[in-house]
């Protein structure tokens, strides 16, 4: 099911304060059957956006479409979405099995839908199955999909965090939703479990083929499993694209700085007469001519290459620090005008303090932003 968002805006009215838009004129289209991540720092409006798609928050302005149907004013239960809360919201007094079955047994809407399916099944196969048993079989099926079958008769307090989450996902999936929404599914888990669980989410999504949207503030997580990411800042769409796309070609400085485990280097410089200067040092000639201006140059640490032989268009760097975190070896160096450059270190022969070297960068791997942080150069 495709999800289209048209000029979506949400403001919260607060007495006495001028309302700031939590989501601001957002336009986006999420393709059917994909796993999409809503990524951004805290407070950027991603959860608000998710809840608007779910129908828990009303729309101040704009429209939401599920496929060809406009759902903007449709109440939550009629939208056919499954929602998994950050804290799972599992009913503590019911077992996992009862939690998963709950929607199908207690919602008039869903009961009718499921009953219809059962009726068709009965007609087709000629078997006589009671509604409750049908629901039980659906529970078993969904449990198998999320791999929680062995724990169905436990109460949430008897399950680990990861297991609780799978129950919550099962409860959302059993409705056969056209869209599955997850609010920060991994933030309550410890580091190792996070990696394992995100792969499971990926797996479940691929097996079921349901359009899935999840909210996260962890860029590594989003980049590793999503088909596409939508990056938000203060309610505004910054960029939408595949992980590789947004990583290699950030559309603005915010995106560039937000993504990447090692923060991207941002060097202040200028363009003068078609040449790029870092600080006051002339560095290289631009492949495409651009007007003279102050610029910020974004270079990822892994794209800073040491010149092993003298060549053109290099920058002199004096090594200031050399460090290692686990298996990652990086070094920090100082440019002539005092700016810092972070780059990768040789694990076999790490740089030492005060080493001098010359570095170069292939222009296609750079991102050049204007003063305000907007991208100006397509490399």
């Amino acid at each position, binding site marked *: 099911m495709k999800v289209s968002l048209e000029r979506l805006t949400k403001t919260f009215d607060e007495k006495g304060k001028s309302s700031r838009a939590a989501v601001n004129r957002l336009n986006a289209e999420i393709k059917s059957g994909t796993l999409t991540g809503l990524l951004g720092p805290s407070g950027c409006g991603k959860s608000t956006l998710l809840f608007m798609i779910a129908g828990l928050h009303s729309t101040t302005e704009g429209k939401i479409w599920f496929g060809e149907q406009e759902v903007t004013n449709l109440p*939550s*239960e009629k939208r056919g979405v*499954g929602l998994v*809360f950050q804290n799972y919201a599992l*009913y*503590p007094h019911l077992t996992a099995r009862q939690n998963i079955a709950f*929607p199908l047994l207690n*919602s*008039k809407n*869903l009961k009718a839908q499921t009953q219809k399916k059962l009726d068709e099944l009965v007609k087709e196969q000629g078997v006589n199955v009671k509604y409750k048993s049908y629901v039980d079989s659906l529970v078993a099926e969904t449990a198998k999909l999320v791999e929680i079958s062995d724990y169905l008769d436990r109460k949430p307090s008897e399950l680990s965090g990861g297991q609780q989450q799978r129950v919550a996902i099962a409860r959302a999936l059993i409705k056969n939703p056209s869209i599955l929404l997850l609010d920060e599914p991994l933030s309550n888990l410890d580091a190792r479990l996070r990696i394992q669980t995100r792969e499971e989410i990926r797996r479940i999504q691929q097996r079921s083929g349901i359009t899935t949207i999840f909210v996260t503030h962890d860029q590594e997580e989003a980049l590793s499993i999503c088909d596409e990411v939508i990056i938000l800042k203060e309610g505004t769409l910054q960029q939408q694209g595949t992980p590789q796309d947004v990583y290699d070609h950030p559309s603005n400085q915010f995106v560039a700085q937000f993504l990447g485990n090692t923060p991207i280097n941002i060097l202040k410089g200028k363009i003068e007469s078609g040449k790029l200067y870092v600080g006051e040092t002339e560095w290289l000639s631009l492949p495409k001519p651009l007007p003279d201006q102050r610029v910020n140059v974004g270079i990822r640490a892994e794209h800073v290459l040491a010149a092993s032989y003298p060549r053109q268009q290099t920058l002199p760097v004096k090594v200031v620090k050399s460090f290692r975190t686990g298996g990652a070896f990086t070094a920090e160096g100082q440019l002539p005008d005092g700016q810092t450059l972070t780059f990768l270190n040789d694990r076999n022969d790490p740089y030492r303090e005060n080493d001098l070297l010359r570095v170069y960068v292939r222009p296609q791997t750079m991102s050049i932003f204007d003063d305000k942080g907007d991208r100006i150069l397509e490399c």
Partner: protein
Amino acid sequence: MLRKKRNPAKARYDNSAYLYLLPAFLLMGIFTVYPVINTFVTSFKHDFQFLTGNYAGLSATHYLDVVSDPVFRRALLNTMFIAFVCVPGSMLVSLVLALGLHSIKRLQGFYLTIFYLPQVTNVIAAGLVFSFIFNTHFGLMNAVLGWFGIEPVAWISGEGIVGSQERYNEAYMRSLFVLFVNNVWDGLSLHVLLFLGGLQNINKQYYEAASVDGVSKWTVTRKITLPLLSPTTIFIFVTSVIFAFRAYANVVALFGGSYGPPGDNSKMMITLVGYIMDALGNYLTPGAVSSAGAAAVVLVLMVMIVVFLQLKLTKRWVFYR
């Protein structure tokens, strides 16, 4: 650098602590611990004389006297009524009110203040007011009934009950009704507040999850709210029953010092504590204090048994540890 003491047992003992505790324990000793033992012992002192302290040996006669006393049985019946009819009634009304309060935003504090008002009234004053509301000739209740063309009812004045068992039972039923109304009015004040507190403790996300699934409000209340409220409910039930067993002042205010209509000697509406107090009132009679003690011991035992049973039975209904 200040470090937390690792092993408090090894730390220096602060003997001045005993000075701090002295007043409390002195008072407790005299007015709490000693009385428990003494009351228990006195209840076995046959024909205990209050003024001299003499008694005719130890026996359980007073227990037998008490248990076979029809007035005691009456008191037991009335107290049970308060504990197991009035309390659930009050809880039911309060639960409905609390659910209503929980669903509104505006004026919630306003309504809650009104509902809590009975809690701050003097028990005697309230009882007297209720007594007057149900006054046969001048009371509000009969006035209201009169609007609907109903004849005045002798709620507590017990007219014509002398000599007629049937009339007596009628009067008793009516008095029970008055007691019920007074107890519910008084009880709901605290219960509404406690239920509301319990409701507010339920995480709102459960409701959000249910709304995405399209579960109706009534089903949500039945299958989510009430189960999650059960610890609060049980707490209220157990503590209210314990207090119900202590009912005394309001009954005196409602029905007078003779616990019933004038001219009737059966002490129609007496409670267990009332029985104890009356026995104490006769303290000069030999053995009166012993009987009072026996009744008190029986009362405490009953409360303990009732609470034990309550906790056992309700354990099944709570899903929490």
